[in-house]
C-alpha cells in the first residue's frame, strides 16, 4: 500500500467518511500495525494544529480590526494620563493660561509705564563715561605692571629664606631632588650653587609620604651639564659598615661629612630609609649620601634628636618611585638618572671637587 493511499484512508477515517465496513477493517489495521496507528495519531494531531492555527489567525485578525475600528470611533484612545503631573496640567491648563496672560500683561504695562516715565539719558554722557572707564582701565593696568616690576626687584636680594636645605642634581638639565619637608611650606623656592649664585627654581613634584621633592632650575644663568659625576641606580642599597660621605649646606657654605652605613633600616625599622652614622645638622636635609664608588645610596633626611650621630637617609630606590609617580602626572617628562659614576677610583678630594657643583642649597621663601 503506498503512502498516498494510506493518507487518504486516514483522512477519510478521521473525517468520518468511511462506511461501517471500512471502519471495522481500518480499526483492525490500526490495531495490528503500530506504524499505521502512529500515522493516524500524528495526522490527527497535525490537522488539529492546522485548524487551530487558522482559527487563531482569524481571531488575531479580528482583534486588530476591532482595535482599528474602536480607535477610529474614539472609543479607545491613546492613554493621556501618563503621569499625575500631566493629569494635573490638563486639569489646570486653563487656570494656568489665564494666570500667565495676566502676568504677561502686567509685565508689559509696567515696562511701558517705566519707559515712559523714566528720564531720557544723554547719549553723549554715556560715551564720555565709556571713555573714562577705558582710561581708568589703562591706568590700572599700568600701575599693576609697575607694581609687579617692583615686587620682582624687591624679592631678589636680601630677603632671608624661611626654609633651607640641600638638593642635588639628578638630571643634567637642572632637575634636583631634595626632601619634601624642605620646601613644602615655601611659596617660592630657589637654589644656590656652591659658588654662591642663586638661581630661581620651581617645584615639579612633591610626595610627603616618601619625603621626596623634585625641583627644576628655571633660570637663564643655569647652564645644563654634560654629565653628572655620580650614579643613581636602583639596586645600590649599600652594605653594612660601608663608608659613606655626604655634602650639604648646614651653613651658607658647602660642608663635607663622612661616616658609615650603620643599619639597613631607618627609624623604628622603617624600610624606606636606612641609618647612617654621620655628623649632620639642620640644612643637611636633602643632601646626597654617596659611597666610595660615587654611587648615591640615599638622600639624607632626618636625625634622631635623642641620640647622637643617628641619621636617616631615604634609600635611593625611592627616587625611582617618585619619578614613576611624576611620570604619571605629567606624561611628557622624562628624567634620565645618571647610570654610571665617573668618580670611581679617584681620591676623595677629587671626587668632592667634581660632585660639589651638583649639590645646591635649597631655599624656600
Amino acid at each position, binding site marked *: 500500500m503506498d*503512502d*498516498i493511499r494510506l*493518507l*487518504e484512508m486516514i483522512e477519510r477515517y478521521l473525517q468520518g467518511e468511511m462506511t461501517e465496513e471500512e471502519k471495522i477493517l481500518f480499526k483492525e489495521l490500526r490495531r495490528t500495525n503500530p506504524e499505521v496507528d502512529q500515522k493516524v495519531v*500524528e495526522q490527527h494531531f*497535525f*490537522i488539529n*494544529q*492546522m*485548524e*487551530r*492555527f*487558522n*482559527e*487563531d*489567525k*482569524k*481571531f*488575531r485578525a*479580528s*482583534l*486588530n*480590526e*476591532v*482595535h482599528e*475600528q*474602536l480607535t477610529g470611533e474614539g*472609543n*479607545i484612545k*491613546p*492613554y493621556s*494620563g*501618563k503621569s499625575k503631573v500631566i493629569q494635573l496640567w490638563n486639569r489646570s491648563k486653563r487656570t494656568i493660561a489665564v494666570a500667565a496672560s495676566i502676568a504677561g500683561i502686567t509685565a508689559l504695562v509696567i515696562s511701558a509705564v517705566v519707559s515712559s516715565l523714566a528720564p531720557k539719558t544723554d547719549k553723549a554722557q554715556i560715551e564720555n563715561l565709556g571713555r573714562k572707564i577705558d582710561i581708568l582701565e589703562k591706568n590700572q593696568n599700568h600701575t599693576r605692571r609697575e607694581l609687579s616690576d617692583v615686587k620682582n626687584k624687591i624679592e631678589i636680594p636680601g630677603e632671608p629664606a624661611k626654609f633651607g636645605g640641600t638638593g642635588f642634581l639628578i638630571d643634567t638639565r637642572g632637575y634636583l631632588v631634595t626632601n619634601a619637608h624642605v620646601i613644602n611650606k615655601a611659596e617660592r623656592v630657589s637654589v644656590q650653587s656652591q659658588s654662591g649664585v642663586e638661581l630661581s627654581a620651581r617645584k615639579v613634584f612633591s610626595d610627603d609620604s616618601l619625603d621626596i621633592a623634585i625641583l627644576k632650575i628655571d633660570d637663564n644663568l643655569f647652564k645644563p651639564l654634560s654629565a653628572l659625576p655620580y650614579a643613581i641606580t636602583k639596586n645600590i642599597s649599600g652594605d653594612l659598615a660601608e663608608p659613606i660621605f655626604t655634602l650639604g649646606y648646614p651653613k651658607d657654605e658647602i660642608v663635607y661629612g663622612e661616616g658609615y652605613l650603620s643599619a639597613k633600616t631607618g627609624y623604628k625599622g622603617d624600610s624606606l630609609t636606612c641609618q647612617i652614622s654621620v655628623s649632620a645638622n639642620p640644612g643637611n636635609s636633602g643632601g646626597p649620601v654617596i659611597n666610595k664608588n660615587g654611587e648615591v645610596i640615599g638622600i639624607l633626611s632626618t636625625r634622631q634628636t635623642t641620640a647622637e650621630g643617628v641619621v636617616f637617609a631615604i634609600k635611593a630606590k625611592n627616587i625611582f618611585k617618585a619619578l614613576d609617580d611624576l611620570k604619571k602626572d605629567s606624561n611628557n617628562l622624562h628624567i634620565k638618572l645618571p647610570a654610571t659614576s665617573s668618580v670611581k677610583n679617584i681620591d676623595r678630594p677629587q671626587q668632592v671637587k667634581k660632585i660639589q657643583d651638583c649639590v645646591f642649597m635649597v631655599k624656600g621663601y
Partner: protein
Amino acid sequence: MDKKGNPDFFKNIFYPTLGYQISYFCINYNTPVNTNLKEQELIKGLALNEKGAIETIYKDNFTVIQHLIINNNGSEDDAKDIFQEALIVLYEKAKSGVFELNCQIKTYLYSVSKRLWLKRLQKNNRFELLANGVEETVHVEEDVSLHEKRDDEFGMMEHAMMNIGEPCKSLLEAYYIYKQNMQEISEAFGYTNADNAKNQKYKCLMRLKKLFFAQYKNGNKNG
C-alpha cells in the same frame, strides 16, 4: 440664586469624573446576576470569533490594561500587544469550554495581562515591580503557561506555512481549512485530474509536516 449654596452647581462640575469612578468600582466589586449572564454570553461569542462580543469586551477593558502597562514602563504598542494576548488567552479558555465564570472578565483579563507583562519585563532583564493597582487579581499561572505553549505552536505553524511556498500553502488551506474537495481543488489550481491534485497535496502536506515537526521536536527538547 446663590451659586455657592446650590449643590447642583458642584454636581455639574464633578459629576463626570465621580460618575465614572463609581461605575468602575461597581463593576469590579458587585456582581449582579444579569451582569454574569451577559458575560457568559460574551464568552460564548468570543469563542466563536464574533465581532460584536470582541468589540464589547475590547471597549470595556482596554483602558484599564492600557493604564496598567503604560504606568509600568510600557508603551502604547505594548499595551495593545499585551491586551490582545490576554484576549487570546481568554479566547483559548473559552474555546476549550472549561471557562467557568468564577470571576469577572475584567478581573481575568487584568490578572493575565499583569502576568504577561511581568514575564515580558523579566525576559528583557527588567526586573521591575509592578505598581499595585486597585484591581483584584485571580490565579492565572496555568492558563498563561498553557497559552505560551500554544503561542509557540502557533509560531511554528506560521513559520512552516510561510516556508512551504505556493501553490502548497493555498492548496493545503483549500483542502484543510476551506474543506474543498479534490475535484474543486484540481479545477481551481489547474490540475488535469483529481489524482494529480491528490499527489501534489500529499507532497505539500509532507513538507509542511517536516517543517513543523522539525521545530516542534526541537522546541520540546529545549523546553
